[in-house]
């Protein structure tokens, strides 16, 4: 057991998988000599060489398209987008090609690519270094979308993603990189894609969340615990496919659901979770399925007062929990 941060967890997962399986290659901008702008690939060029750690041209359609091609010819590419904000020009390769490959070949041709991207707000990145992009892929069958919150989950899920036979969008919340530390076992382990986890059991109300917000929600849960509100925090971990069983099971128990997500309110993962709960366990609900999310603005503004206003935080979550608990 060692205590590491999310950055290290991602790094170690990459390093271990590359050592384990020589078919694993990395493609991305500045991932070689520089070790990545966040240093998630530090030392990997030295260890595995230029043929497997590829500093690509500044070209996201090529990064993703080359990865798709390489995956069809026996490799297990991990494609890095420097920031999730810059993957929009790869959306065609991801949605038209990677996501549909197995389907269009009647199951014959897989496309085992991992598309990694640091995402999320709260780091003064302004509109183009803060975005939540998960909503884009939620409605795309053929993809899996993974959003770990802790070092343990990040490492175990990234290893699972690399071994997955289908394309995985692996989203790393930038702000968790250094902020979030946690224990990680020494040997090889996997966390299964598609399984949520109850990060805190509770009786009165379920908070469904993922990514950085998991930590804020846990904090909020502790705060309201003192007021006698016992909150269960479900960390989705994977937002596609959604672990309906765990989510519905929890809300069935608590009868109330608050969905907390950093993405802007409309159209994000929270809408899908809310729709599922509202349809499938309608009778079990003792209050409206409530969403707490960022406002519907195109992205985080830079200046601190605006950024703080736009970004979710623990106090906002506490308020939402209290309101729903009081319903």
């Amino acid at each position, binding site marked *: 057991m060692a205590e590491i941060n999310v950055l290290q967890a991602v790094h170690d997962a990459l390093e271990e998988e590359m050592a384990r399986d020589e078919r694993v290659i990395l493609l991305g901008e500045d991932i070689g000599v520089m070790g990545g702008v966040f240093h998630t690939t530090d030392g990997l060029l030295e260890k595995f060489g230029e043929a497997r750690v590829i500093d690509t041209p500044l070209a996201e359609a090529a990064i993703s398209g080359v990865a798709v091609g390489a995956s*069809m*010819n026996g490799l297990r590419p991990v494609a890095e987008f420097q920031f999730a904000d810059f993957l929009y020009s790869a959306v065609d390769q991801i949605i*038209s*090609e990677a996501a549909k490959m197995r389907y269009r070949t009647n199951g014959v041709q897989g496309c085992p690519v991992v598309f990694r991207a640091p995402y999320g707000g709260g780091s003064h990145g302004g509109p183009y270094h803060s975005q939540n992009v998960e909503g884009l892929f939620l409605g795309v069958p053929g993809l899996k979308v993974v959003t770990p919150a802790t070092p343990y989950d990040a490492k175990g899920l990234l290893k699972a993603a690399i071994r997955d036979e289908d394309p995985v969008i692996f989203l790393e919340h930038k702000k968790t990189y250094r902020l979030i530390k946690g224990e990680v076992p020494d040997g090889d382990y996997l966390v299964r894609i598609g399984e949520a986890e109850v990060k805190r059991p509770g009786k009165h109300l379920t908070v469904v969340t993922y990514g950085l917000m998991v930590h804020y929600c846990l904090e909020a849960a502790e705060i309201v615990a003192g007021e006698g509100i016992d909150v269960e925090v479900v960390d989705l971990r994977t937002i596609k496919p959604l672990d309906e069983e765990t989510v519905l099971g929890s809300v069935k128990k608590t009868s109330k659901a608050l969905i907390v997500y950093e993405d802007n309110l409309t159209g994000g993962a929270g809408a899908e979770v809310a729709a599922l709960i509202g349809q499938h366990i309608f009778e079990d609900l003792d209050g409206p399925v409530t969403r707490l999310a960022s406002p519907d603005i195109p992205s985080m503004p830079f200046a601190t007062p605006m950024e703080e206003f736009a970004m979710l935080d623990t106090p906002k979550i506490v308020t939402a929990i209290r309101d729903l608990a009081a319903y």
Partner: protein
Amino acid sequence: MTIKPSVGKAPHKDLGLSQDNLLEIYRLMRLSRALSERGWLLQRGGKTAFMVTGEGHEAVQVASVCAMERGRDTFLPYYRDIGVAVAAGMTAKDVLLHFLGRAADGSTGGRQIPGHYFDPQLKIVSGSSVVATQIPHASGIALADKLRGEKAVTVCYFGDGAASKGDFHEGLNFAGVHRLPVIFICENNGYAISVPGRKQAAVKNLSVRARGYGFPGVTVDGNDVLAVYRAVRQAAKRARAGGGPTFIEAKTYRLTPHTSNDDPTRYRTKEELEQWQRRDPIERFKRYLSEWELLDKATDERIGQELSQAVNEATRFAEASPLPEPESALRHVYLEE
């Protein structure tokens, strides 16, 4: 027209091509044509809802594949490349099952519209209908071959319209930077549906673009089997020797509508079409073979009969073959455990 036998050293000899080789190419071109023609019949007869074929492109499609090592090298056809598909080894049955969207369609199991050829055994790579997305795939496939030290070459096909897409640029540039063993073949038929070359690019030859990626680009007569064969063989040799990519622009013409949804009289003149009909690559190659006394009338007729028999049989077979089950639409979204 009577055909005078040619004298001197035959051009194909320089290329090391035997009579058998040439007749194989000829046969494949005609197979491609026969299947294309059958495709239109089936579509017009309501047996399939869509058709796209390759009449006019047979020389570049077939000769390029025949210049490669089949079984070792990889092919990325686009929707027009029925000639690539059959030259790489797909049979008339394979094509007909695909045209008719049968459950046994090995390309897509009836999931994609006709024109999307795929066979991993033959190293034919699955493509979408999205123009140019296969170009970075080709670079990725070649990258994997290079990484493993395999002496395989990847051949990627696309149209003149595709050369305007960002994926073209990013895919070729990546190949250039890594000196990948890949050949990019642009079947420039002068139109992207109705959009003529001059509205597509302000250059005479798209092949000049290769210079911007640090590798050679050539323009060849895409209706000339031997010119195509020569260019591709040379590119393959370079690629296999570690010399990197080549961009080959093959000028040709589409003799049919773009697809079954198209009416080319809206944008092409009758004269232009007729001019190119006179340059039909199959007729032209047949003339060459006759001139060098490699193909006599009897053989030609026998080939025609064999092909039409094969196509008829394949049609019957495919028509009798079951359609996919409705619920099978739900399968293969992810790997099935």
